[in-house]
């Protein structure tokens, strides 16, 4: 019999894409390792002041 699958997912990159994927995976019932090479997650979006076109704050 094949080995039982793991219910964990490795997400590489903690920018908006990685964080969103991790949140949805966790909500879907999986355990997520969110890995980033920097000291904190957030990626480039954390550097933005506002976003187009709504000018919402990006943090």
């Amino acid at each position, binding site marked *: 019999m094949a*080995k*039982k*699958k*793991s*219910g*964990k*997912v*490795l*997400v*590489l*990159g*903690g*920018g*908006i*894409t*990685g*964080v*969103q*994927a*991790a*949140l*949805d*995976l*966790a*909500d*879907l*019932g*999986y*355990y*997520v*390792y*969110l*890995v*980033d*090479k*920097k*000291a*904190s*997650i*957030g*990626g*480039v*979006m*954390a*550097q*933005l*002041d*506002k*976003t*187009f*076109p*709504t*000018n*919402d704050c990006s*943090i």
Partner: protein
Amino acid sequence: MEAGRSPNIEIITLAELKELSGKPGNFRAKLHIRPRYVDPLKCTSCGMCTTYCPKEVVDEYNERLTFTKAARIDYAQAVPTIYYLDEKECLRLQHESCQLCANVCGPNAIVFDQQPEERELEVGAVVLALGFGRVPEEVLEKYGYGKYPDVLTSLELERLTCASGPTEGEVIRPSDFTHPRRIAFLQCVGSRDVTCGNGYCSSVCCMYAMKEASVVKEHLPEAEIDLFFMDIRTQGKGFDEAFNRAVEKYGFRTIYARVPRVDQVGRRLALTYVTEDGKTHRDFYDMVVLSVGLDAPQDAEVLAERLGIELNHYGFAKTKVSTPLETNVPGVFVAGAFQGPKDIPESVVQAQAVAARCSELLAEVRGQDAIHKEFPPEDEELERLEPRIGVFVCHCGVNIAGVVNVKEVARYASTLPGVVYTEDVLYSCSQDTLNELVKKIKENRLNRVVIAACSPRTHEPLFQETLREAGLNPALIEMANIRDQCAWVHAEDPEAATQKAKDQVRMAVAKAARLMPLELQRVSVTPSALVIGGGAAGLQAALSIANQGFEVYLVEKEEELGGNLRRVTGLLSGERPQKILEDLIKQVESHPKVKIYKGTTVENISGYVGNFTSTLRREEGSEVINHGVVILATGGKEHRPVLFGLGENERVLTQLDLEGELEKKGGRLSRAKSIVMIQCVGSRGEDLKYCSKLCCQQAVKNALRIKKKYPKKDIYILFRDMRTYGFSEDAYREARKAGIIFIRYQVDRKPELVKRGKSLGVKIYDALLGEELFIPADLLVLSVGITPGENEEISKVIKAPLTGDGFFLEAHVKLMPVELPVEGVYVCGLAHGPKPLEETLAQARAAAAKAAIPLAKGYVEVAPIVSRVDQSKCIGCGICAALCPYGAIEMVKVGKRKKAQTITASCKGCGICASHCPVLAISMGGFTDEAILAQIEAFGAFVEREAEEKTEKEEAA
């Protein structure tokens, strides 16, 4: 950010993937984790290490515009909120010389001898979300970057405009710290430029340039701003409108020209450029902003080699239109800008889609490794006692305490009625303080808690959870935002800020005394989905949900599945669209969990998230089904405007008609010698206000297909802006090389149809020649755009709003691109807005991910703040039901009269109903009239004090 709080997300920073082995479902990943030199369990993020660190370092987070320290956190809101030592800069780590940070660190969190760690993880799937890289500085040098200080990159400007940035939001010239009066934005720097190896379009710069220009204008209303474009590429949903609005509001000048270089003349910067009429201009500016494109991520190559992932010729992950999330390694997926340059909403869509893709792969082990958090039972007896209020006043490091006298506020709080415990805390949100909070609640038998700190928007859920851990109902907390509303806005007047903080605390205490426990409701979910629409979007969404293990009802109003995709016969990637469609249909039709209804319409969707009931009608009769969620994939239609003789002259056809002709042998196409394509016919301001996003790619694709089949034919494409964004820019370049002629037309001088006997032609003004041209058109192909399908009816049935253009309006244009304001209803494909196939397929999966969340949980938790109707007071006027934006109030028959009733699962607690009820029969959980009035009365003390002070002053005078 929310990710920091989920028990099922483990954040590992300073780490890279060294090795991956195994197969889908069972991978082994080896991580190399660099030391942080700070113990995460001890660090309270107080910032003392940064304050005392003597080593100044260039601040990369602020784009090197200012300095930070070797011991630091990158920005105040960083997750995890733990400081770190910069290995390369720290004096101790480099020279064994200093240890100031360790000396001042209260909790002894500094660990100089921390070692790198190797860690092995077992995972079922891998997602690569590497983001994007920086365009090398050499590329920017030809624009004077690095040589002239007032040439900035767009990210540098982003930091300058930011209130927490190096200049606190002041836009100044780095050379002399003066405000720039004239600013130029240069687009396509490091994009659409084969000389630097980036032939693609970065797809986001036109939008962010417009945003930055607008923000600058808000800071400096006097500034004159010019933007230099090759094409204006604002093809996203609602983007054209936003762009035009900004141009009009701020009076920006948009110029079609590519500026080749920047010179400094005196203290100003000179741009020399040629406009489309062939004239040379020279203009002077005080600041030049380079709209720098998105490069492939820098670490992509190394990682690709380690994992055996194929990259495309630009260094981004190689994917197909039909499978935009798959790399060539099974079980390793890709999402976001690493798959190709894209903006935030597109990245979020792919992130959600990739979650669905992983969930399809691992459906059988869902929940196996997830951690479920348990809370102790509520102490109802304690909750019923007279209010025993605990007030915690937060320093937020120096963020609040630097302005507000926190200790004084805490002292004042202890004198308020009902308050039995007060304390000032350094960081109320740090983990150790939260643990303390639980202890204090239990020790002092507190049954109401007031936190005077920051915004409930970001922190209330955290404190609510803490209350639950202490055995209290989460509704028994009230926050006073003394950070934003006192420390921040009254930073220059500490005394007044402290006084206001006291007022706010008094009001919060008054309200807290009247808070009542609210029941946390759970509604069970019918584990199936209704997907409306059997085109590409609906098929992909249905398939994904079914593969995740849930029943799907797929409804298509026509007798055949496939929608608009049935008419598409080629793709730029070389993939065959009919093959993609066939595969999708085959998989959906053979899936045991999908029930397909062709020739069927949906009538009457009622209910709420988790429990919908719908009637499916077809000729033979109707069927009633129960389902937990709804996906709207109702598609769009080809626009067929009465322009250029479409529908009257058989030589005039649309791009979709042409796709059909391209498959035929012989026919009109083979006879035509000269073929003219016109872009934006009926779009961007005519019958349709918007851009349909895909027509430019489609025109280039079809032109190339014609050229390949019939190399001798003359092809002209008349356009306003060529919007071949992303990698399709390659095809645009290829088309020009292949001899296809592109002519830009001006909005006020659009091409005109000319009939000469039996032959057709087009008259167009050519700006470069400065004269009108006549081009014969044996075949005239119109790019006509996409109109919404029959969205209006469904929108009324489920109370989901549409945009002004008739597409479904998502819950948040950036962060919730597939959710609708109505819970349990999701949208994808053309029903959301025009988009090419690849984006439709990704969005369909994103909708499938969001829809599968309630199905996977099996229940929906209803936020406790919902409206409640006192039916003995209700007069049945129905105002509330008509006003509710979420369809959460229904009118039910009680005895002989109609009464309002809240559908708690749909209620969002906005309070519109309560504020409009003429007989005050509706109250909001957590915001009862009584509690709000008490809060206002407590505010009254301030008014009285003011009045007294005024009289005193007057008397003194």
